């Protein structure tokens, strides 16, 4: 890439920076194993004819995020709403790589097969609509995080004893956090749960407003939406989804909402978020 704009000195500085050893991100020993298990789980979901088949034998990542805050307490860089120099990036949907040899997403969804699987699931896995588990229903919050029919539940007000809005100290004193030794959040920091990461991958806690985001791994919403679901399945479980272009919100308990993020029509990220996430 040689042209008049070639920033020789700046280019060298960038190469030097990207070679800096401080870019290293430590990870725990079990991280690789957990990723392999996570991949297996995704594969099973893709091929599963029934929802119940995936509820057993599930392992998820144990440790990539755990090891991080102890060496580097920087708050997660969630987004940069202030970015204003997006230029022609704005309004364009990100395109997938088109390299014939290597195209990370091109075959992620065979529409015919996906549809088949979806129908298969619909036939064999009846879902309970969200209305049966009203957010904020009396007593409902106390049962968050308990196991209903296999998978633990996320929401509507938290995950088990961990509640949206709960302060870092309360969460630590209750023994909920795995890496509480890392200290309280400065701004916004990520934590993992003492119970492991089978159900919840990461919790983001804001210094000012407490538990702000709970990101699911294996957990599902009380209405039954979980990672790997199609948009139709999530819509069925949560009528009145609000959003478009792959990102949808649904009301959870008072002061909280679910965020469903889809990639190629499949739920990729599921999180419960505070309506007042502070710095997160």
């Amino acid at each position, binding site marked *: 890439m040689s042209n008049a*704009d070639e*920033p020789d000195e*700046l*280019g060298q*500085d*960038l*190469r030097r*920076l*990207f070679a800096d050893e401080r870019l290293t*991100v430590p*990870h725990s020993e079990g991280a690789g194993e957990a*990723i*392999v298990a*996570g*991949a*297996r*789980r*995704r*594969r099973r979901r*893709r091929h599963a004819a029934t929802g119940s088949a995936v509820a057993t034998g599930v392992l998820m990542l144990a440790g*990539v995020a755990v090891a*991080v805050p102890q060496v*580097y307490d*920087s708050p*997660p*860089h*969630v*987004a*940069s709403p202030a*970015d204003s*120099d*997006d*230029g*022609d*990036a704005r309004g*364009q*949907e*990100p*395109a*997938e*790589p*088109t390299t014939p040899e*290597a195209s*990370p*997403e091109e*075959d992620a969804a065979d529409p015919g097969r996906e549809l088949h699987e979806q129908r298969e699931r619909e036939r064999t896995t009846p879902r309970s609509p969200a209305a049966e588990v009203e957010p904020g229903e009396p007593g409902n919050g106390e049962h968050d995080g308990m196991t209903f029919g296999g998978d633990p539940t996320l929401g509507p007000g938290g995950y088990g004893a961990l509640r949206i809005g709960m302060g870092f100290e309360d969460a630590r004193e209750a023994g909920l956090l795995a890496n509480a030794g890392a200290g309280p959040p*400065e701004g*916004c*920091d*990520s934590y993992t749960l003492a119970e492991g990461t089978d159900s919840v*991958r*990461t919790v983001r806690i804001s210094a000012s407003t407490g538990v702000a985001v709970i*990101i699911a791994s294996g957990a599902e919403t009380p209405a039954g939406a979980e990672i790997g679901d199609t948009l139709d399945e999530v819509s069925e479980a949560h009528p009145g989804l609000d*959003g478009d272009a792959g*990102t949808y*919100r649904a009301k959870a308990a008072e002061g909280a909402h679910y*965020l469903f993020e889809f*990639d190629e029509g499949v739920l*990729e*990220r599921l999180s419960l978020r505070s309506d007042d996430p502070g710095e997160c």
Partner: protein
Amino acid sequence: MAGDDEDFAEFVESALPGLLRYGHALTGNPHDAADLVQTALEKVGARWREVRRKTQDPTAYVRRAMANAHISRWRRTRRENLVADIPERQGNPASDPFEHEPLWQALRELPPRQRAVIVLRYYEGLSEQEIARSLGISQGTVKSQASKAIASLRSRLTVVTEEQ
């Protein structure tokens, strides 16, 4: 499937440290790096046999998937943030190991796609054409994004220098 799992496990074992580093360069922080790497690897691992058949270099494949995922996730999160009207996040520069690195701080200000172009070029050493293919954009766009990014980095670095 057991053989595939074993093969994938070996790949993860050897590629994970490098991918985490790359994710750190791409996202600017280790938390998002871990999140991005985990998601990308799980997706690739879920169809490992196909990926293996398609590419000789699965690491490059995962890196490019990460760049695309990062750009599109940023868009989603930004949309979410607009909806939720989140106040601009406050940074925590005190615990950032690159706190005294003006170039790192300047990189933080770049929109994700510009940053991705810079990372693909100076971290991965890709050509303009390869970057265009990786991100699914035209070479012209790569050129314009790169020069915007460089101009922006230069001007921020100038400001920093003048302030000191």
